[in-house]
């Protein structure tokens, strides 16, 4: 038991905390920084922005990524936009409103102080990105354009066509490459972190595998930053990139880092419905489409006419009907659950009746095809490539899919895990989005953590260990961890069973989607808690990984990732079972209002659940961080 979790939130007024704390924290002088080694694992938005910033400041940075180029990190796929409280539209936005919307959107399960800091630095992010040459959308006068996203009544989302993540990542990647050229950042590509090295309770390095040669290597540092993204792929089908995985976070968890709120998963309402069994991933259609698209299903479950021939009176625009003030722009969890309800009622559309319509015909009539194409052209093209249907002519079909994970490694206000020296940034941590993330806030958080938070909070930690050399890589802690890694690799290669890694991944995905997906209940979760360990056992008996460990071997890479998913999946179900309330993306059927909306139970569950690894995946230890709301009053969310 680690006692009461200390969030290290500084004292003071919510609006002054960060400013005051920046002054109070210790600094590292420029001449000392180059003596300090920092490892950044992962080069998505959080990692690349952190590496660029720390490199500029003079630290000795090593960036490790499994991609052949850091520019390919999962962040590249983000489409819709990034929030910032610039109030360029003069429509009533402010830092406080962004803070308020995010806490409310997260269904009051996030840490107020972190969220306020996020809202504060959001404005600096946009300045930074524009200075780097990120080609955000502009109006004819040359000023920046904004759009609105779910869960907000102001236009605060900056975007770069439907490729915002790509452009932001290229900005951060290029800033990092500038530091590679300057010699402050060393790039280690095609290399996967397979374990964290901890000595005397302090993080001191990582063990990696070179994915080209199979070489297992040791890297030591004064601080380790995990910026390795989310774990949505535990569901097999999700909108995440194929390689996105939880291994870095899970291995750190097994070395002592607490894993918080694993059950908080975001199911995104606008994805292309699954077409058939062989499907390898799901494709998101950006939420921004809900600005101009109207969601509907036929009123009659037996409807057979094509969409265009169904007259207005036979359509149910269910979001507009149920939520008149937010309409199609309700938050993601609400939109997703409502889609599930109508599809479960048999009103789904498409060949498999597994979708709802997202209809642009009125927007095209109002604004013209050209205006719509300017805004969403690439998304429409992508939709057509996948489905062979033209969304300018027939409504899109959409259905919810796993998209983002709010849970992650527990961190304090400094983004430091409970293992000193281990910092966690971006989607990999649990900190800012509570039980539901608002659209366009993940990019904001990744860049906030990397550009504007970590350089202060990490310096505060490093100032305390100044003068100490990094633990040498021939230390016993490194030797033991390296041996563990090698044993695991050999284990996967030598099981010699009959089933491919993908087979187990798909099976796990089915269990997770069925019992730990959009709606959860005690019976289902209990069932899953029986099925997952059984599947895990079968995995270690019947896995087949061909080839060797000393060259490119993607089956071997997958095997390790799936082994970790098989443990994490169980923890997610356990967390979902333990949290006997509905909040945000976590909907427990036992806890709903009369109208079927999520019902929180603040008296019992106003905390972050942080799980400790005990050695037995079926028996983790729960710790709690009580959440304190001094500023935002807890109410039942309403988007009516």
């Amino acid at each position: 038991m680690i006692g009461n979790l200390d969030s290290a939130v500084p004292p003071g007024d919510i609006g002054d905390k960060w400013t005051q704390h920046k002054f109070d924290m210790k600094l590292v002088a420029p001449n000392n920084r180059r003596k300090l080694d920092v490892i950044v694992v992962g080069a998505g938005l959080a990692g690349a922005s952190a590496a660029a910033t720390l490199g500029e400041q003079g630290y000795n940075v090593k960036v490790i990524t499994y991609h052949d180029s850091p520019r390919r990190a999962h962040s590249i796929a983000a489409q819709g936009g990034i929030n910032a409280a610039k109030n360029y539209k003069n429509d009533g936005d402010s830092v406080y409103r962004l803070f308020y919307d995010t806490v409310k959107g997260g269904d009051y399960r996030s840490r107020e102080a972190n969220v306020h800091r996020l809202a504060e630095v959001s404005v600096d992010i946009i300045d930074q990105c524009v200075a780097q040459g990120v080609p955000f959308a502009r109006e004819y006068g040359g000023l920046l354009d904004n759009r609105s996203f779910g869960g907000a009544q102001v236009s605060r989302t900056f975007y770069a066509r439907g490729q915002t993540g790509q452009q932001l990542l290229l900005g951060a990647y290029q800033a990092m490459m500038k530091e590679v050229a300057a010699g402050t950042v060393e790039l280690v590509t095609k290399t996967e972190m397979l374990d964290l090295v901890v000595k005397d309770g302090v993080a001191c390095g990582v063990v990696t595998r070179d994915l080209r040669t199979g070489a297992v290597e040791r890297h030591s540092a004064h601080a380790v930053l995990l910026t390795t993204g989310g774990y949505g792929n535990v569901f097999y089908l999700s909108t995440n990139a194929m390689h996105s995985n939880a291994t870095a976070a899970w291995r750190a968890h097994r070395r002592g880092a607490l894993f918080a709120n694993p059950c908080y998963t975001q199911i995104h309402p606008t994805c292309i419905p699954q077409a058939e069994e062989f499907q390898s991933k799901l494709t998101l259609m950006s939420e921004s489409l809900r600005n101009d698209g109207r969601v509907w299903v036929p009123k009659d479950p037996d409807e057979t006419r094509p969409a265009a021939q169904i007259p207005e009176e036979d359509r149910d625009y269910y979001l507009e009907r149920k939520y008149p003030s937010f309409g199609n722009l309700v938050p993601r969890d609400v939109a997703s659950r409502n889609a599930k309800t109508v599809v479960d009622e048999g009103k789904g559309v498409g060949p498999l009746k597994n979708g709802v319509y997202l209809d642009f015909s009125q927007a095209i009539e109002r604004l013209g095809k050209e205006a719509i194409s300017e805004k969403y052209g690439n998304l429409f093209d992508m939709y057509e490539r996948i489905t062979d249907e033209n969304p300018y002519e027939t409504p899109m079909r959409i259905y919810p899919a796993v998209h983002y994970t709010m849970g992650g490694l527990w961190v304090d206000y400094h983004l430091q895990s409970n293992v000193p020296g281990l910092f966690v940034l971006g989607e990999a941590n649990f900190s800012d989005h509570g039980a539901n993330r608002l659209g366009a806030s993940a990019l904001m958080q990744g860049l906030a953590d990397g550009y504007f938070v970590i350089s202060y909070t990490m310096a505060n930690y490093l100032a305390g260990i100044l003068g100490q050399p990094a633990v040498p890589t021939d230390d016993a802690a490194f030797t033991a961890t390296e041996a563990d890694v090698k044993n695991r690799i050999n284990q996967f290669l030598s099981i010699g069973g009959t089933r491919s890694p993908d087979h187990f991944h798909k099976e796990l995905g089915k269990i997770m989607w069925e019992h730990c997906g959009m709606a959860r209940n005690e019976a289902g979760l209990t069932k899953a808690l029986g099925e997952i360990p059984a599947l895990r056992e079968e995995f270690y008996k019947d896995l087949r990984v061909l080839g060797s460990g000393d060259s490119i071997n993607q089956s071997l890479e997958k095997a390790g990732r799936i082994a970790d998913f098989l443990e994490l999946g169980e923890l997610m179900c356990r967390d979902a079972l333990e949290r006997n309330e509905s909040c945000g993306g976590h909907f427990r059927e036992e806890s709903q209002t009369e109208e079927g909306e999520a019902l929180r139970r603040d008296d019992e569950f106003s905390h972050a659940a942080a799980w400790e690894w005990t050695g037995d995946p079926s028996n983790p230890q729960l710790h709690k961080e009580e959440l304190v709301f001094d500023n935002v009053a807890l109410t039942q969310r309403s988007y009516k």
Partner: protein
Amino acid sequence: MKLKLNIWRQIDRDAKGAMQSYELDEVSPEMSFLEMLDVLNEKLIAEGSEPVEFEHDCREGICGSCGVMINGQAHGPQKGTATCQLHMRKFSDGDEINIEPWRAAAFPVLKDLVVDRAPFDRIVESGGYITAPTGAGPDANLIPVPKDAADAAFDAAACIGCGACVAACPNSAAQLFTAAKIEHLNLLPQGQAEKHQRVLGMVGTMEQYFGSCTNHGECTEACPKEIPLDYIAFMNRDYVKAQLKNRKLLGQR
């Protein structure tokens, strides 16, 4: 549908590779090209043969990981489409499909269909950025950027770094990629200060690794983002200007 696949197999960088043939039935037209390869790989594993290694990640045409020669065409037959977004409905029952890695001296094959594209990062390192240290930027709306300039910069910035342009080029030149990277920044007001150094640095590095451009235009044809050849002209223009104007260079002469 039923297909005959001829796929390049190569154990490692130094090994000699060869084409190998596979029969695959029950390919659905709804599958993506990579899903078809997934099905093949599952079949190979079940039979006890090593699966075919190929690069991929986002499967949405944005990360630039994927990319193979399909019947001699980089990314296959559909214009403006990366391999991962190509669907089997573009093929017919009974087709024979040749699948090979990118071929270019600067992109050595690492295994099967996987090549090493690290030289692209080296080009970016040589000036493909704007020096704007974190926190130093002015308010984002201080410098208006004409919409046309922002759009033109964006069209270049859309490059996904896949390398199809190099693979499609008879000379293995990287002009289209390099031009896209340079012009994204050179077309923006924020990119002006380093404009000359940027083009000289990046073109210099490009020339160390890649062949020279003889205006075939195959690159644009293969490019999944349809980056137009105009950008190569812009790059050449900037290069000439930079040679004339770069004081450091003039001083050395």
